[in-house]
């Protein structure tokens, strides 16, 4: 499946790069705080059945206009602005981690404008007894520990093969990471809770909640909390997968999603 890229500009003025592939029902994927990886095999596979769109948020990849988005409402409206610009009608929404938080907010804001919703290891809730580790204080070499079931494989994926012992590679990672997490911090820092739980009652779309069983960043107890707040939700937990479940177990992940979306 070949992936193409296009640049769009939202009415607000953000310039957004969108990856696009496949054909069929439109499926919009919102990436997590780390952004898209150089390779995203689960999107390739999904594109065999759906028309997949993966916009990069401002400050991620080639997208710009981060100064235009400051709070949760800005992020959620930006998501709809992108969909408007792409000319899509009632797409499926799928969001991973921070992207799940944004997709859920979008669905609460305009519950009649989407088809189905998939939340993957989604941020957006907070349980006092199960605090989420402070990812903003992670050193470069610490991310893999919290993000993957298999730490060594995860590290290779995270850095795209870069060797963090090489100063030039470390510099590139450091600057990119600062940009991305600076943006993500607007809705995730210091606690990734912008009161989504208060608004989830508005969500009417059929919803699938997917979680990695070994997720140590946002542990699976958060899947149960989403289920409690979204009565119609189905929950699927995937074995041998951490927070980066779509990357770590792409086959199991894609089959859970396609079973749900139809």
């Amino acid at each position, binding site marked *: 499946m070949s992936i193409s890229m296009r640049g769009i500009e939202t009415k607000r003025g953000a310039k957004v790069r969108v990856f696009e592939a496949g054909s069929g029902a439109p499926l919009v994927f919102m990436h997590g705080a780390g952004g898209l990886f150089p390779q995203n095999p689960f999107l390739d596979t999904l594109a065999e059945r759906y028309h997949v769109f993966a916009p990069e948020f401002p400050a991620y990849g080639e997208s710009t206009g*981060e100064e235009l988005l400051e709070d949760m409402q800005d992020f959620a409206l930006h998501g709809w602005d992108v969909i408007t610009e792409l000319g899509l009608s009632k797409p499926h929404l799928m969001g991973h981690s921070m992207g799940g938080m944004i997709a859920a907010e979008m669905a609460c804001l305009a519950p009649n404008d989407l088809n189905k919703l998939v939340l993957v290891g989604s941020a957006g809730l907070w349980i006092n007894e199960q605090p989420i580790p402070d990812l903003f204080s992670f050193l470069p070499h610490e991310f893999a520990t919290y993000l993957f079931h298999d730490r060594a494989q995860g590290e290779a994926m995270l850095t795209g093969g870069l060797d963090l012992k090489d100063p030039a590679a470390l510099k590139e990672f450091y600057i990119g*990471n600062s940009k991305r*997490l*600076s943006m993500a911090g607007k809705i995730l*820092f210091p606690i990734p809770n912008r009161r989504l739980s208060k608004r989830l009652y508005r969500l009417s779309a059929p919803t699938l909640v997917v979680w990695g069983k070994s997720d140590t960043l946002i542990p699976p107890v958060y899947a149960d909390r989403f289920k409690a707040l979204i009565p119609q939700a189905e929950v699927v937990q995937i074995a041998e997968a951490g927070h980066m479940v779509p990357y770590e177990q792409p086959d199991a992940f894609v089959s859970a999603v396609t079973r749900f979306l139809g």
Partner: protein
Amino acid sequence: MKFTWFNLMPWPYLPDDFREKHHSVWVDIPNTLYDPQKGHFVYHQYMDQLEYAESLGFDGIGCNEHHQNGYGLMPSPNIIAAGLARRTSKAALAVIGNSLALYNPPIRVAEEFAMLDVISGGRLLAGFPVGTSMDTNFCYGQIPALTRDKYAEAHELVMRAWHEDEPFAFDGKYNQLRHVNLWPKPIQKPNPPIYIPGGGSIETWDFCLDNDYNYSYLSFTGYLRGKKLLDGYWDQVAKRGKDESPYRSSFAQTICVADTDAEAEKLYAEHVNYFYNRCLHIYGGFADAPGYRTIKTIQADVLNALSESAQNMFPSLSWKELVDGGYVIAGSPATVRERMEDLIKGLHTGHIFCLMHVGNMPDWKTRYSTKLFAEKVMPHLRDLWPEWKDDDRWWCHPMENRLQPEHGIEQARQDGRIPL
């Protein structure tokens, strides 16, 4: 030259194995290491030392703001300064300063600084730091990417509150106040001199120059890195067509004076070691939350950022390395004089924040070093900038007939200065 005696107020009872056993001196340091009953004596001793410095002729006495740490015990510097205002009458009170983005609403800073200026009879030097990332982001929860924007808005609000004579409405992004009407207002007009402590953000230079504020560089990483940074600042001063008054900048320096160089090492090495290896044992992940520094600053300074945040900020350093590298200026009065002169001229600075209590230094050593500096070093450094000797733009302008509360106020009552 102006000399301000500054006490960081570190916790002097961190255990010997602190560095090995504990994650960080800041943010998540176990607060069971703090003992309030010992703290009672620590605060009084530190404040006594500041008062002692005034009596020896230091131009200013200084304090600052930090949170949740064993490095500096002043979450509220204004409480310290209020104590000093009642026990001194000559020295400038350098509060360097209040982290503007942390006050809600920041009008609180305008009020408390005005109170300090009024109580002290116009002796306040008002500092507006952004605050370290540890303080501002990790302890006080400010969103890193919005911290500087929030700071800028708070700055505008405080300055307007000091300057305007009529109530006004302030419709900010972070602060909406329908009625801003400052009571009390500061003695110094239009406002006390403003000091901006910077750690190397390029944007801070322009902010200082736009407003003619003092750029205060506080560095524990030595004269050479300090010079690189201040050279950048002075280049910017020239580019902007501003005059080169050395009083546009100030510099914080750890200084230890003894009879001889050898005695300095013998007396002070263990305390300097305590400071660098315990008080600065900061977990790298807390040093710089993503978004705290702008991408422009990071790109300009990325290798330093990496060496600081990818590792511990300060690995073990020996006395010799600290002294030779200019992290610490230490030795006999003659040695210290010579090195201070190099520093002052090399950095082109008119105001030194003298860090003379270091780590867990006991009171008698602190006073010994301070007295030697005041008597045998300071007088020789006074007139290094003769062409700028009348430049008082960055110094306080106290009331002439102010009270001397440290001597009681009876005299003022008798000579009719008290209007009531």
